[in-house]
């Protein structure tokens, strides 16, 4: 059950090194053949310093870096009943392979809702601000997860 007392809680910062292979793997899994995600020369030709991250790459540090699991554990959420409600990314600056991005996850809202069919669910909203190794803010992620009851 989601715990309303966690609203405002901030979790310890998690750092994640952005890897070229992981960007390629993400593009391949999506089936996105855009060469900028796989070929450094193609990316440079298009005006990038290196291959850019795909628009949804930031799910990798969220899952792999452990922020999401920490959150789910701390809020006592049953993973088997979790659905993804919303996701929003704001891109503030470039992120390239070799960058080390640090994300600080904060719980911004926890609420219970009743669907039209009468079933109850908890909605948990988090925000993560990512900064790079130079301390520059590079991206923001806002996530709503839904726990079915």
């Amino acid at each position: 059950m989601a715990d309303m007392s966690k609203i405002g809680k901030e979790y310890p910062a998690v750092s994640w090194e952005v890897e070229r292979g992981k960007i390629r793997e993400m593009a391949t899994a999506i089936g996105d053949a855009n060469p900028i995600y796989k070929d450094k020369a193609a990316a440079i030709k298009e005006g990038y310093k290196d291959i850019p991250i795909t628009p949804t790459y930031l799910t990798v540090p969220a899952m792999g870096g452990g922020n999401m699991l920490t959150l789910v554990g701390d809020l006592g959420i049953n993973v088997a009943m979790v659905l993804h409600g919303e996701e929003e990314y704001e891109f503030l600056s470039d992120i390239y392979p070799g960058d080390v991005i640090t994300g600080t996850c904060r719980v911004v809202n926890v609420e219970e809702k009743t669907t039209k069919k009468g079933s109850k669910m908890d909605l948990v909203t988090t925000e993560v601000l990512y900064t790079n190794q130079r301390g520059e803010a590079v991206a923001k992620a806002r996530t709503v997860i839904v726990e079915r009851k």
Partner: protein
Amino acid sequence: MAQELYYEDVQVGQAMPPLTKGPVAKLQLVMYAGASGDFNPLHTDDDFAKAVGMPGVIAHGMLIMGFVGQAITDWIPRKNLKKLGVRFAGMTYPGETITVSGTVTDKRKDNGSNLITCEVTAADQNGGVKISGSFVAALPSRG
């Protein structure tokens, strides 16, 4: 890959070129689990999915958002995408074909940036909506 698109060449009401993806395969869900690090068995294990009340595995919502990201960056260079937000409106099952479409809803100059806002939808072959959302891109000016 996307050609440069100029602010002056985009009009409110204009359609984004649609992108059709799929059919979504169970193998793709396994690949996406590995790529993303989201190993919730709801996406890869039919027995588990049935035990939690689903007819079978469902796609990661983030995979479908990835389709949306591809549609956008096929049209507008990746570096011009500033914000992308979606709501997951429906579950995607293996075998479904997903089409991403969108419409420009706003153009504005803000602090020297030329911004467009576009609403986007990802829907299956029967029109069932999986994702609704919007994105903001900053475009170069011909001026």
